[in-house]
């Protein structure tokens, strides 16, 4: 495997000689309402390295999609990025004006949406809109542009790409449309692709095709991929590192395997427990009681405390800080699966043993 995959074992920590391609620090995106402020993203930090795929997992309303949109500056009023930074190859994106963002979007930073029809213009042929996307960042000779379009369509597995350039979006199936959207994202060989639930609307057989193809494409091109999904299983299939979001914060992060095998945060454990795969068929599933807190009235302490089976008085009073330990990090006063001898929540290193 490439060296990038080894780097993925160090979230949030710069590795000697290799800078992350994207670095997000304390990102805060809030939505102002008349009587309240919805803190959709409330202090999110992470790094993306070249060639690595990171999964961002959470349930509806956890802030995972708003995080993705914030990276590209795609937040409309009443939403606003109220704090933090997003550095892409050294350039700060938060605070850029429209022209500055346009120069970055599509070229260095691309996005794939859940619904490919949100990306594709229904009244332009595939070829015409790919040309538009390509020419948006500087004129390229017609023949050369066409060749590039054919090349990326072929890369994403669209048969007979020369002929398909003349086709309209409605002539494609859902899976093929999503492939075209991926092809458009790849046109400029961006450094980072943000994919928001790109396979959620697709059937499993098509999802498997797209997972396989996108995995190969980012490996080959060295693009960093942020894969946003509610589905732990797809994240486990494609991402070596995972960030788990709850109520606007990353509550746990680390190598996907380690996190799934021995989650530190009770929310991650609860999510895993509620999957049908986790229990014997026919037996009741371990369920997380209640529902997430409203984002305009987050509790003072841990936002998960009201649903947490291990919550104590401290959890309701004091928001847990981010504690990191070698390649993992969590926000919990009483993390799970730490070696028993280890003092709890001390943040000391050396507790890498999992049970």
């Amino acid at each position, binding site marked *: 495997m490439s060296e990038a995959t080894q780097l993925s074992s160090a979230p949030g920590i710069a590795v000697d000689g290799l800078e992350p391609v994207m670095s997000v620090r304390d990102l805060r995106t809030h939505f102002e309402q008349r009587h309240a402020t919805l803190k959709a993203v409330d202090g999110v930090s992470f790094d993306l390295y070249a060639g690595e795929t990171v999964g961002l997992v959470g*349930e*509806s309303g956890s802030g995972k999609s708003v995080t993705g949109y914030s990276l590209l500056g795609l937040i409309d009023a009443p939403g606003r990025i109220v704090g933090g930074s997003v550095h892409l190859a050294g350039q700060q994106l938060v605070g850029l004006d429209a022209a500055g963002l346009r120069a970055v979007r599509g070229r260095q930073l691309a996005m794939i949406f859940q619904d490919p029809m949100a990306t594709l213009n229904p009244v332009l042929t595939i070829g015409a809109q790919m040309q538009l996307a390509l020419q948006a960042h500087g004129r390229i000779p017609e023949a050369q542009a066409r060749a590039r379009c054919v090349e990326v369509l072929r890369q994403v597995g669209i048969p007979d790409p020369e002929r398909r350039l003349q086709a309209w979006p409605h002539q494609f*199936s859902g*899976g*093929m449309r999503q492939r075209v959207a991926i092809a458009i994202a790849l046109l400029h060989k961006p450094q980072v692709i943000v994919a928001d639930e790109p396979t959620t609307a697709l*059937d*499993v*057989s*098509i*999802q*498997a*095709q797209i*997972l*396989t193809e996108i*995995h190969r494409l980012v490996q080959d091109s060295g693009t960093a991929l942020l894969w946003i999904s*509610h*589905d*732990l*299983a*797809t994240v*486990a*299939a*494609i991402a*070596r590192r995972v960030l788990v979001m709850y109520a606007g914060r990353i509550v746990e992060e680390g*190598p996907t*395997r*380690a996190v*799934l*095998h021995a989650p530190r945060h009770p929310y991650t454990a*609860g*999510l*895993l*427990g*509620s*999957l*049908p*795969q*986790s*229990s014997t*068929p*026919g*037996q*009741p*599933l*371990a*369920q*997380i009681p209640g*529902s997430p807190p409203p984002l305009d009235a987050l509790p003072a302490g841990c936002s998960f405390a009201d649903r947490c089976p291990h919550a104590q008085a401290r959890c309701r009073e004091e928001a847990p800080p981010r504690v990191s330990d070698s390649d993992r990090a969590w926000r919990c006063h009483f993390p799970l699966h730490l070696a028993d001898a280890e003092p709890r929540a001390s943040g000391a290193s050396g507790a890498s043993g*999992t049970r």
Partner: protein
Amino acid sequence: MKSDSAPIHLEARAVSRRFESPPGLSERVAGWFGTAPLPSVVRAVDLADLQVRRGEVLGLVGESGCGKSTLGRMMAGVLPPSAGEILLGGQPVMAPGPRGRKTTSRVQMIFQDPFASLDPRMRIGEALAEGPLAHGLVNAAGSAAYVAQWLQRVGLPAEAAQRYPHQFSGGQRQRIAIARALAMQPDTLICDEPVASLDVSIQAQVLNLFLELKADLSLTMVFISHHLGVVRHLCDRVAVMYLGRIVEVAPADALYAHPRHPYTRALLDSVPRLDLHSESDVIALPVPIQGELPSPLAPPPGCHFHLRCPQAQAQCRQDAPAVELVSAQHRVSCHRWREI
């Protein structure tokens, strides 16, 4: 309850359903110039035979467009079949004919989208009482207590009756939809993707509710889902559909452990596996099925799956495979199941 000895409760006998659209203007114009018009008949369900025993939960799985929802709607008596019949306890669920109406309230249906299946301007109490009042299951005086009883049965407070659908979350709305179906005192539920739009943690709550209801009310259920993990968890037997045909039916254990039809195998392989016990760092990508679902307007001849099947031979391209028995409980429609 040992369900393989229970009597057959719900049965589909050679059921087919076609959807036709009259030729549009462009087709007619094309017709004048001698171009062959596109076929405009979709065989959504093609000669489906299926038995559900009393107290059993049958899973119906397949990809979009395979006909699972159409078959479910026919079994619920809300869509008349084009041919064949659906029997509930030996009686047809619908009066015959294209305008036939449902003849029984013993079978009820639960839909995927609890936002669409509840009237936004109707209080929950009214929505739940409407059917039972019309069918004389309860009188006006007793309806409030009756509604409260069913709300509590699905884990909601009795006060919910006074509120409107928008005041509830998706998971709570799905509970309301379940309560409304149960208030008709059915013995059979047809559930069409009832947990597909719910978050994982809420999905677990609703699945647990289904498990409880199944045990407490001894309901017979048909559970339609594209989510193979959910189906495995809840269902006793599973039927797999592809392009309108049932290709394999087996007890859940046997189907997941030893799938016989190449499509069932491919479908299971394309689901990302979440192996919680492996510490290996190797990424296990799912194995995709080759190609795409052919258009249901023009399904391929022979076995519908042959275009995507790695095992297809000449015979598969010509003859539709017959139903064969792997064991008493396990049937498959594949020419080559013995060899592969």
